[in-house]
C-alpha cells in the first residue's frame, strides 16, 4: 500500500496542475453501445483487458491504476497491481472492494452480469469496443484519453501511431507478394489450434502484409497435420511463450507434424511475445513492424523503434 500511495499523491498533484481530473467540467465518453458514460472522477481506475492497461500507461496515467485483470502483464509496473481475476470472469464485488471511481474495459471482458452490477453500484463503467484492427486501437486510445482527461497525450499517441502505420503501409505496398501465415495456439498436446478469421492473429497478419493461411472459419479450431499441409503456409506464427514451452523450432515442427509444410521445410517460424503480438494495444504498430520485417526481408524494414 505504501508503495502505491506516493504515485497517487503525485497524480493528484499533476491533475491539479493540468486542471483535469476532479477539477474539470463533467467528462462523458461514448461506450461500445453508443451510451454516454459520465465520468465525474478518474482518480482511481481499474483496467480490465491488457490493451486498456497498456493504453493507460502509454498515456502516462499508470499511477491512477489501482487494479487490473490477470491478462494485464505489460508494462512491468502493471504486475504490481492487485488482480481482479481473469478478464472474462470478473467478480463485481472484488472490483468494488478496491474502491474504484472508474472501471475501463472492452467488449471482450465479462460476464455481462458483473458489469451490470458495477453500474448499479454507481461506479462509472466504460466498456469500449474491441475489434482486431488498427482503428479499434485508435478508438480505444481516444476513449481512454478522454475518460482520463489526457486528450493531449492521446492525440499525440494517435498521431505517432498513425504515422508509423502509414509508413509501414507505404513500404508494404512495394512488396511483391503476401506470404501465407499459419498462426498456431497451444501446440503442446493434441492437434494445435489454428487461428481463422476474426482473430487477433488474423488482424496482425493483415497489418503486417501477410495473408492468413486459414480463411474457411472464424475463431480458433484444431487443425490436423494434413490440414496444415493443405494450406501450404509460407510462415508459421506462434507466441514466444509457446515456442519456449516447446523448447524450440525443431520441437514445434515435430509436435505438430509441420515439417512438411513449405514453412517447415524453410524453417520459417515467427515468434513474438503474446501480448505484444496479439494485444491490439498501443504496441500494435511495433508488433506489425516486427512481423512485416520477418515476412518481407526484401524491404529492409528496421525492427528497432
Amino acid at each position, binding site marked *: 500500500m505504501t508503495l502505491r500511495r506516493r504515485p497517487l499523491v503525485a497524480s493528484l498533484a499533476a491533475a491539479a496542475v493540468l486542471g483535469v481530473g476532479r477539477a474539470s467540467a463533467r467528462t462523458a465518453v461514448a461506450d461500445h453501445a453508443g451510451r454516454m458514460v459520465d465520468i465525474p472522477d478518474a482518480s482511481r481506475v481499474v483496467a480490465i483487458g491488457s490493451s486498456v492497461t497498456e493504453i493507460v500507461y502509454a498515456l502516462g496515467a499508470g499511477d491512477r491504476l489501482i487494479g487490473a485483470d490477470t491478462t494485464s502483464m505489460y508494462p512491468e509496473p502493471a504486475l504490481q497491481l492487485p488482480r481482479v481475476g481473469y478478464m472474462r*470472469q*470478473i*467478480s463485481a464485488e472484488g472490483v*468494488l*472492494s478496491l474502491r474504484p471511481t472508474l472501471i475501463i474495459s472492452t467488449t471482450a471482458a465479462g*460476464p455481462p*452480469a458483473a458489469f451490470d*452490477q458495477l453500474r*448499479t453500484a454507481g461506479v462509472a463503467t466504460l466498456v469500449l469496443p474491441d475489434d482486431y484492427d488498427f482503428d479499434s486501437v485508435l478508438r480505444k486510445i481516444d476513449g481512454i484519453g478522454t475518460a482520463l482527461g489526457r486528450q493531449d497525450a492521446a492525440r499525440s499517441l494517435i498521431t505517432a501511431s498513425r504515422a508509423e502505420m502509414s509508413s509501414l503501409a507505404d513500404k508494404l505496398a512495394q512488396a511483391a507478394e503476401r506470404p501465407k501465415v499459419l498462426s498456431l495456439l497451444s501446440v503442446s498436446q493434441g492437434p494445435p489450434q489454428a487461428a481463422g478469421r476474426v482473430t487477433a492473429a488474423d488482424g496482425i497478419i493483415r497489418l503486417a502484409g501477410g495473408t492468413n493461411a486459414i480463411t474457411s472459419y472464424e475463431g480458433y*479450431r484444431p487443425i490436423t497435420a494434413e490440414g496444415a499441409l493443405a494450406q501450404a503456409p509460407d510462415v508459421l506464427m506462434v507466441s514466444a511463450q509457446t515456442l519456449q514451452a516447446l523448447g524450440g523450432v525443431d520441437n514445434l515442427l515435430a509436435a505438430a507434424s509441420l515439417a512438411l509444410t513449405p514453412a517447415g521445410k524453410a524453417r520459417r517460424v515467427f515468434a513474438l511475445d503474446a501480448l505484444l503480438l496479439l494485444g491490439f494495444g498501443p504496441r500494435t504498430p511495433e508488433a506489425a513492424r516486427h512481423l512485416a520485417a520477418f515476412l518481407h526481408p526484401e524491404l529492409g524494414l528496421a525492427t528497432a523503434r
Partner: protein
Amino acid sequence: MTIIALNAGNAVRRPATVPVLLALAVLAAVMGVAGLALGPVRIGVLETLSAFAHRIGLAVSTASQQQEAVLFAIRLPRVLLALAVGAALAAAGAAMQGLFRNPLADPGLVGVSSGAALAAVATIVLGDKVLHLLSPAMRPWVLPATAFVGGLLATAVVRRFGLRDGRASVATILLAGVAINALCAAGIGFLTFIADEQQLRSLVFWTMGSLGAATWTSLPLALPLIVIPTIMLMRDTRALDAFALGEREAGHLGVDVEHLKRRILVLVALATSASVSVCGIIGFVGLVVPHLLRIACGPGHRLVLPGATLLGAALLTAADLAARLIVAPAEMPIGVVTALIGGPFFLWLLARRLRLADT
C-alpha cells in the same frame, strides 16, 4: 434379559430429528448472514444492519450508496440464489438416492443437468440468428428458459426409455441416463468445436458453474421454480423410507410406487433444471450432502430429506463465500470449490464401501 443387555452395546443411537433440523436451520441462517456480511468489500456490521433496517423503513441507513449497492444488488440476490440452489441440489440428490436405492445416485443421473447444459450451449452457439428477432427485454430470459426446457426434455426422454407396460424400470432409467448424458456431452463437444471465440467465453460459465449471474432480473422467476419443487419433495419422506425395502415391498406398504417415481422425477427435474439454468452445473452438492447426513444421523428420510435441504443451502452459501474471499478481489469458480471438497469425499466414500464389501 442378559441377551438384551449384551446387545445394548451394539445398539445404534440416532439423534432426535427436530433438534438436528433446528440446528441445521440455524446453520443455514448463519451462513446466509455471513454471506451478506462478508465479502471483498468491507461493510461494517452496523452499516449492514442499518441498511437492512432502512429498507424495511425502520432507521436511517449509515451505509454509503456503494455499500448499499453491494449489499442489495450483489450479495443479497447471490446469497438467496446460493441458499435456494444448494437446498434444491441436495434435496434432489437425497430424493434420487432414495428412489434409486443407491447412495451414489445424483440428479445428473437422469440427464437433467447435461440436458440443460446442452440446451444452454446450443442457445449460445446457434441462437444468434434467432435472438435478433426478440425484443432486447426478452433476451436475458432466453438462455435460462431453454436450459430449463432442455433439462426437462432430457429427463422425459430418459423416463420414456425406462417405461415398460406403464411401469418405470429404475435400472433401465439408469442406463438410459448414461446414454443421454453421453449424447449431451457429445453435443456440447460438437457445439464447442463450432463456437467462435465470443461464444466460447459464454460456454465457460456453463461448464464451471457460477452464482455470479444472480440479479434481480433473473431471481423472481428462477427462485420459485427452484424452491417450490424442493419443498414439495419434503412430502415423500415416508414413501422413500419404504422404498429402501424395494419397490414391490414399498407397494405392499401402501406406496403408490409408479406415482411416486413419476412425482419425484418431475420434481427433481424441475428443481435441477431451474438451478442449472441460472448457475450452470454445480457438482457434488447433491451427492455429498445427503451422505453426510446419513452417516451422522441415519438413513431415515424424515431427517435426511429436510436435513439435506438445509445443509445443502448452508454448504453452497459457505462455498460461495469461500469462492468470493480466497482469491479476492478475483473470484474462484464455485464448481472448483465444491469439487475440491466433493472429490476427495467421494473417493473416501468409495474406499469405505470397498472396505465394507471386503468384510
